[in-house]
């Protein structure tokens, strides 16, 4: 008798009954984009790796261990901590995909290491990642929000900042090498990670917005204040982390523009306006080109010329209007 009253039935997930279409859309996007590091011919970078100076190699390995740490946090704590907050069973399933892909990302850096580096160098870098105060501080700030009992929406804010902002001090470097025709296969792998992180930040930011819009204006303002305060704190740490890593090769200011640009995108994922003004976000065009190759500005409004190119005319019937 007691059993019948108290137990709610266990529910099997039904993907043919959706409460939120976005769950299926994102699930499909993530599963179609699935990849493993074995797909990328990293060994083609062995020769290129040998052309880097010792301090450049050390920097690269350190940057990758820093990224590994964030992926590990998101895989084992971040994504799982959001599952109990899920509004739909499908959201939980998407989060389980996100969690697993973060494990793939973390695993990928070790593939890069085993292909290019010596065990001793790598062990040293992992030790560095455990001892670096800035790296540890940023991971801890995020972990504070992932703790059980914290506000589910603040947890989502922290998660979007990790996925859409904190990775970029690290992602900058492989894009920089790629722009100089170095470690191009490694860059291909990193671009797969960057693509995944964009979907993760978009989805979690979307779920944040859906939940936040149901709250009072007062509570919404509190969340917004929290988000801007957190990104200020994270940015403060990121600046120091960036300077420590990149001062040696003179790239700190360049990396900071990239940080500003990505901080603004992270805020947009939450539905908020930009924090950094356009002048602070002028990312080196070579880095932008490395990020999205073959998509230089050929559009009309950005073009310097007065003419524009339109696609070749295709005679279409309504029947073959199939994109």
């Amino acid at each position, binding site marked *: 008798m007691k059993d019948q009253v108290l137990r709610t039935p266990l529910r099997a997930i039904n993907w043919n009954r959706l409460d939120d279409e976005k769950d299926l859309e994102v699930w499909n996007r993530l599963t*179609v984009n699935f*990849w493993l590091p074995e797909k990328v011919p990293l060994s083609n970078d062995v020769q290129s790796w040998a052309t880097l100076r010792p301090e450049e190699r050390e920097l690269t390995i350190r940057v990758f261990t820093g990224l590994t740490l964030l992926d590990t946090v998101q895989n084992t704590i971040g994504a799982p901590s959001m599952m109990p907050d899920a509004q739909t069973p499908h959201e939980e399933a998407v989060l389980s995909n996100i969690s697993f892909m973060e494990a793939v990302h973390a695993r990928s850096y070790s593939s890069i290491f085993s292909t290019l580096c010596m065990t001793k160098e790598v062990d040293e870098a992992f030790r560095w990642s455990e001892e670096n105060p800035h790296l540890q501080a940023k991971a801890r700030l995020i972990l504070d929000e992932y703790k059980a009992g914290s506000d589910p929406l603040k947890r989502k804010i922290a998660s979007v900042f990790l996925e859409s902002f904190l990775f970029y001090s690290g992602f900058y470097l492989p894009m920089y090498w790629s722009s100089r025709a170095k470690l191009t296969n490694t860059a291909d792998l990193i671009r797969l990670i960057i*693509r995944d992180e964009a979907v993760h930040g978009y989805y979690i930011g979307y779920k944040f917005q859906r939940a936040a819009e149901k709250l009072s204006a007062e509570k919404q303002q509190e969340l917004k204040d929290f988000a801007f305060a957190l990104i200020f704190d994270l940015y403060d740490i990121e600046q120091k982390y960036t300077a420590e890593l990149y001062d040696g090769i003179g790239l700190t200011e360049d990396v900071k523009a990239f940080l500003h640009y990505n901080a603004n995108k992270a805020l947009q994922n939450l539905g908020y306006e930009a924090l950094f003004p*356009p002048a602070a976000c002028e990312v080196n065009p070579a880095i932008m080109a490395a990020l999205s190759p073959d998509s230089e500005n050929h559009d009309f409004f950005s073009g310097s010329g007065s003419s524009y190119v*339109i696609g070749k005319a295709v005679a279409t019937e309504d029947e073959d209007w199939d994109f």
Partner: protein
Amino acid sequence: MGGLVYFSSASGNTARFVARLNLEAARIPISPSDEMPEPATPYVLICPTYADGEGRGAVPKQVIHFLNDATRRKLLRGVIAGGNRNFGTTFALAGKVISDKCNVPLLYRFELAGTETDIARVLAGLDKFWGTECLTMA
């Protein structure tokens, strides 16, 4: 100045971009059961991108349905596409697909909900574009 038609999914990035343009614009509905806008004058389409890693599915289904109508398609003069550079080569791909398919220029591409710079460029660009359009009509 000509019209604007846009699509924005529930995430609202494109809707926020359009709101900041502060120009009159008709929204293609998210739900297939809602009524489509029926532009009576030439317009520019603003459309986000939903491509997978191979570029498939770049143009949202509701936008395809909208453009499937020959009367609406005839008035399309240009396309502005949203996206995210994180998607690499498929960044704002919907713009290129529509541009090729409908034989109209890809006017501009922006990320997510756009920046101040994007808004200024699009406003100036549209102004100039419709000016050109009028001259060619005359």
